[in-house]
């Protein structure tokens, strides 16, 4: 049977002054329904490009993305994106930000009451109901990202795309949000692709870690299956042998075999 989401021989060229620059070369990836996949690699290796192609924001030069047997080549709410810098509309409150998404995606099949309930349900999921009437400028970075996640979830996506969602946050806030994300994931069992450069984050959250080689012409170097039982607990895992084994695998890949030549 075909995979739920299939990246089939995806390559992309960007035009530059010196001709085409091949950023990604021959990326093949199959993702099953309900799988949590992290893409990890050094900065500039094109991991965000992979996500942008899946999200439909970029067009692959060769190959394509097939979701549930259908090719996707433009953005849509079935592949909701959580942006690194949250990308909330600064003139709308948290509630209105989610509401805008709900209204444009499912406004035609929900009445006013159902829209309100669905918005509130998603804000509840990320524990942001207490600040629903605040503007993004009035809440912390971690809270903004929670609302960003709520907005993406409210679109009921087939695949949730997260572009370094916790990259701009401090370590403690990041840990909190990772825990929240695991909790949500155990409830909704979404198919998730997360871009990250944090080894612990990748091992803790993922079912599969996709390790990218360095660009130009970056591609998938290795795929690591993470078979740790869920629910996973940060504290227990810290001394877990299996966990540390996965961790060192990723570190070896990143810093030994594919170390960056220039810092």
């Amino acid at each position, binding site marked *: 049977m075909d995979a739920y989401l299939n990246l089939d021989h995806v390559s992309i060229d960007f035009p530059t002054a010196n001709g085409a620059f091949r950023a990604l070369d021959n990326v093949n990836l199959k993702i099953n329904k309900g799988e949590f996949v992290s893409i990890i690699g050094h900065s500039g290796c094109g991991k965000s490009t992979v996500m942008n192609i899946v*999200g*439909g*924001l970029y067009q692959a030069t060769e190959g394509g993305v097939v979701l549930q047997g259908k090719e996707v080549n*433009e*953005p*849509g*709410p079935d*592949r*909701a*994106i959580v*942006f690194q*810098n949250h*990308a909330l*509309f*600064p*003139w709308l409150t948290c509630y209105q930000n989610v509401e*805008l*998404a709900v209204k*444009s*995606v499912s406004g035609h099949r929900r009445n006013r009451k159902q829209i309100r309930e669905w918005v509130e349900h998603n804000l509840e999921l990320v524990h942001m109901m207490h600040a629903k009437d605040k*503007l993004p*400028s009035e809440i912390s970075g971690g809270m903004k990202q929670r609302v960003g996640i709520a907005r993406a979830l409210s*679109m009921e996506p087939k695949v949730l795309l997260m572009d370094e969602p916790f990259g701009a946050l401090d370590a403690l806030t990041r840990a909190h949000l990772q825990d929240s994300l695991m909790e949500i994931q155990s409830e909704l069992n979404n198919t998730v692709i997360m871009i990250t450069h944090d080894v612990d984050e990748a091992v803790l959250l993922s079912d599969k870690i996709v390790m990218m080689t360095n660009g130009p012409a970056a591609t998938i170097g290795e795929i690591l299956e993470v078979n740790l039982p869920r629910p996973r607990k940060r504290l227990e895992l810290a001394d877990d042998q299996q966990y540390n084994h996965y961790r060192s695998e990723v570190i070896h890949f990143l810093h030994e075999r594919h170390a960056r030549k220039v810092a």
Partner: protein
Amino acid sequence: MKDKLIYFLELTGMTWFVPVVRMLAGEAPLKQAQLLVQMIGLPLLAMLIFLMLWHIGAAKVITSLGQVPGPTQVWEQSMVLLDEHRAERERERQFYERQELRNAERLAADPDAEVRIRPFTGRDTFIDQVQTSLKTVFVGFLLASLIAIPIGIVSGLSQNLYSAINPLIQILKPISPLAWLPIVTMVVSALYVTEDPMFSRSFVTSAIVVMLCSLWPTLINTAVGVSSIDRDLINVGRVLRLNYLTTVLKIVIPSSIPMIFTGLRISLGIGWMVLIAAEMLSQNPGLGKFVWDEFQNGSSTSLSRIMVAVLVIGGLGFVLDRIMLTLQKVFSYDKTAIIR
């Protein structure tokens, strides 16, 4: 109450009253007094020095119309202008009163008599001229905004359109209102021919000249504001599959409001400056014509009266700018941004 008042004062740019409010509310009076000296005392001192220099300097220059007026003469003339206005209004009132009295008498004598009220045709006072000027600049500015904002938004969204019209904008932008005036005058007199014109021709001419000159800052600022929207916000719109109109209404306009208003403020300032020149030449009743008439008149009080007009022009320009600033703060989502 106190906080609301302070918010209002900050919104309208009257920040210099904030310490007074805080002091009256009994909030750290000493510190507020210091702030007060800084915010009101220093500008007041500068104003006094300016008036003194003016007074001394003016006395030293003798023109063919006599000495250049100092602050006191200008103040006297401004009172005279106000009195003239009141006298003219009084005459107008009496004129209509007389007519009504006469009409009433005629109707009493013969109920079928045809009565009508003749309009008052007194000369325009200074205050009337100010009102005409404000009306003209407002119409010109409104026309300019209605044209510039939509074009700015569309060309900010489309790189191709922007490159297409950019050279045109750059060429038309630096043209002086005085150069436009003869062309506009001819075009208006060719096209604006009606039996019963709603506006006088000179009014239309001045308003269009104002429009031509105040289009560009709004257009350019809107285009720049629109093209510099955070890519991620646009991408959110793409993920949500918003159509063009919804994208413009829900994402583009709200996020470029600050830049649009910056453009509008510059435009209004330019429009006000251009207006005076346009009125002088097109003989549209307004402040420009007042200045020109006084200059031609050449009496011993002319220079003082012109000076009054100059100060009023400056003061009204300041007020218009403040109004735009307040609107900008009201409509902008980022209330904390410092806007000068």
